[in-house]
């Protein structure tokens, strides 16, 4: 006669069958049984029932705690034994081995690459040749880097400025204090904001005087970098970063009260939307006319002049505005979640 195990209900096969049937485990059923049982009785359970129930619960609680303690003891013992340490060791050693081997492979790869600066390298081909030789003539930009990123490969740069924009939007989604007063989450955020305001303005005299002296110069330099992006080294990305840095410095010295007079969230939205829309629309026009070989009214102009090189100076201004706004928005949102 086959031996029937006492804990047949808890062995894996009936549990599998039961799980396949309704997705619950025996423990779940035990709990539901109990609940059903208690509901089947009188509407108002007697004191004895309640006491018995509580005793049962207490017993179960005690037993669970004991089991848990036993499990921890067991695990503790196990961690002292060599087996567990071995697993830990293998894990760490494997991590180190994988890292070292990847580093080794990449270094090895670098040693096989074409030698640095050699004229016979594959990179010195007709592509870079045309950029260097005809870049100024075709785009009208003395700074051929500006010509490359804003005229030859303007589509990439359009994508890149949208990367900045989407990064700013992600920060807004994550950190912006909500004006939705009904939502419980926003109350906490408002408190955090109040906290932040307590620590400002710092009114550091030295900082304020130096800032008052420096910020106009930095801003002018940034504007110069943006406006002359097609003539000298610089351009929208670097000039915009300089302007953003100036704004952040000003904010740190004088606090939000002063910056709010000229730079609010609305300013941010208006400036970045105008800049990006201008970029997208003007470039869409340029792409469309280029692809269909239509006549475009954009001409390179005289290289070296401030307003030359077709769209490049205007695109530089647009990119500069987006970069400046994005940097400032990052700073303010990481600081207090608003502008």
């Amino acid at each position: 006669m086959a031996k029937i195990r006492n804990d047949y209900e808890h062995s894996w096969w009936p549990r599998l069958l039961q799980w396949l049937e309704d997705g619950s485990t025996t423990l779940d059923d035990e709990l539901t049984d109990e609940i059903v049982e208690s509901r089947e009785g009188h509407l108002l359970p007697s004191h004895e029932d309640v006491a018995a129930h509580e005793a049962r619960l207490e017993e179960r609680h005690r037993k669970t705690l004991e089991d848990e303690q036993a499990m921890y003891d067991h695990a503790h013992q196990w961690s002292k034994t060599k087996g567990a340490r071995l697993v830990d060791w293998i894990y760490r050693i494997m991590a180190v081995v994988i890292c070292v081997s990847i580093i080794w492979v990449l270094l090895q790869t670098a040693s096989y690459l074409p030698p640095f600066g050699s004229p016979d390298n594959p990179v010195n081909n007709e592509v870079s040749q045309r950029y260097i030789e005809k870049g100024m003539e075709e785009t009208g930009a003395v700074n051929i880097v500006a010509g490359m990123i804003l005229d030859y490969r303007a589509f990439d740069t359009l994508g890149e400025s949208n990367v900045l924009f989407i990064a700013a939007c992600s920060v807004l989604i994550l950190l912006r204090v909500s004006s939705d007063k009904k939502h419980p989450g926003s109350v906490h955020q408002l408190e955090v904001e109040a906290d932040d305001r307590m620590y400002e303005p710092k009114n550091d005299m030295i900082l304020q005087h130096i800032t008052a002296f420096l910020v106009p110069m930095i801003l002018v330099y940034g504007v110069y970098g943006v406006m002359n992006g097609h003539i000298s080294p610089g351009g929208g990305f670097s000039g915009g970063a300089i302007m953003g840095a100036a704004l952040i410095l000003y904010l740190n010295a004088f606090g939000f009260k002063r910056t709010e007079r000229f730079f609010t969230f609305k300013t941010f939205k208006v400036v970045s939307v105008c800049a990006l829309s201008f970029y997208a629309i003007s470039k869409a026009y340029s792409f469309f006319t280029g692809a269909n070989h239509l006549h475009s009214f954009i001409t390179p102009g005289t290289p070296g002049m401030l307003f030359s090189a077709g769209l490049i100076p205007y695109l530089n201004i647009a990119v500069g505005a987006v970069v400046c706004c994005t940097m400032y928005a990052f700073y303010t949102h990481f600081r207090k979640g608003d502008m």
Partner: protein
Amino acid sequence: MELWQSIPFACILLPLGSAAATSVMKRNLAKYWTFFVMTAVTTLSIIFVVLMSRFEAGSYTYMMGHYPAPWGNEIRAGMLEAVTALFFNVIMMLSLMGGLKKLEEHLLIDKQPLYYVMLLLLTAALMAQVYTNDLFTAYVFLEIMTIAACSLITARTRGRTLVAATRYMIMNLLGSGLFLLGITLLYDLTGHLLMSNIKEAVAELARSGQYQMPLTVVVAIMSIGLGIKSALFPFHTWVPDAYGYSTPTSAAVLSSLVSKGYIFLLLKIFYRVIGLDVIASTGILDILFVFALVGMVMGSISAIRQSDIRRMIAFSSVAQIGYIFMGMGLGNEQGMTAAVFHIFAHAVCKAMLFLAAGGLADASGNSKQFRDLRGSGFRSPIAGVAFTIGALSMVGFPFLGGFTSKMNFAMAAMGSGDIRMMLVLIVLVISTWLNTIYFLKTVITIYRKPLPEASYPVERGRRGFCFNESLVLFSLVNVALGLFSQGIIEAISNGLRNFG
């Protein structure tokens, strides 16, 4: 150049240009505007597919600007790109429709326009990914996809989503980093960023035997980088949290579009950048093949162990991504065709499953546990039917998309004729068996009598017009994908011939 050939350009620029304006709109205006743009892009894609098949244009390039290709940027469109773009747009729009009600519930009011910005930029990035013929453009839009996907997860403010987004970010940035490193090395070896030019240069290198070692490394890190980003098996640890706790639209879009966009890019790299012969000689296909086979089994086993319906579907995605990589790993043309078809079949199906699971959970007191989902198929009938159709398609029920793709995989394996044939057939059988276990169990659960003590809030009023419409449309697309699979497969294999 005909006017209709500008459609790919319009499909990229329209969502890209309108995204910035959406960020300043009020909530409802942003919603309608997003729908308008998505409808426009979808309509354009439909027209494009029709015209492409009508004129049998093969594939053509489109200059983005006044300078020809190696100097300026360029996009390229063929039949495969057109069909993929159409599928992506349809799924994007239906996912947004289906999740709209939950979205407005989960998101703070003044953050909803930003969510639409993310969706529009994601659409633009997907379109650019599909149509681009330039490796660096692909990277730029890959960045947009990564960031947008992260904010789609964090948009629903909850502790778990932040953890999920952090994981997602770390793994995906690792993938992006490897991919960028690959582009840099490849540029150093070939001096080009335009895909067709790189292919010529690589073929030249392969013939002369120069730079073999760096080339192998480039292929490996690009494939692994994109594999990480599209949740290939050993790199899938970010999947369950990212898909399981975000708002349903995000889960649908992430699982069925974002990861597929990366796979499509990888396919493009195989065909158009490196060339299949060189790829096969590096042996990376074998590695992807092994990862895929293990993933097909392990993903399903993990799915069986879940007690949460959303996490179960998420793990099922891991297994299905394994199917796609297995098709690519076979290395023959049939395998690639089957993989592309499975991209569509899985994308359409998984988005529908996520939305339907959201609806079922809604009808069960917002619980996603199987215990509470009992009988939810009766409480939310359309979601139940849609889930059943999706589950049957995943399992491989005839007349549905999943069946055709499984059959195609088996046929492709027969065509390869070596040890891979046996491996694929055996794993396919095991994986189908495991799929059946967890999907049919779920279907049975949602049509069972609820537990006696369970009480569900009786929901009054409409469950959202958009939700039902979207699920019905999704079901129709699923059935159509199965019924007209022959035509679609023909279009895919035609497109693949012009793809390289």
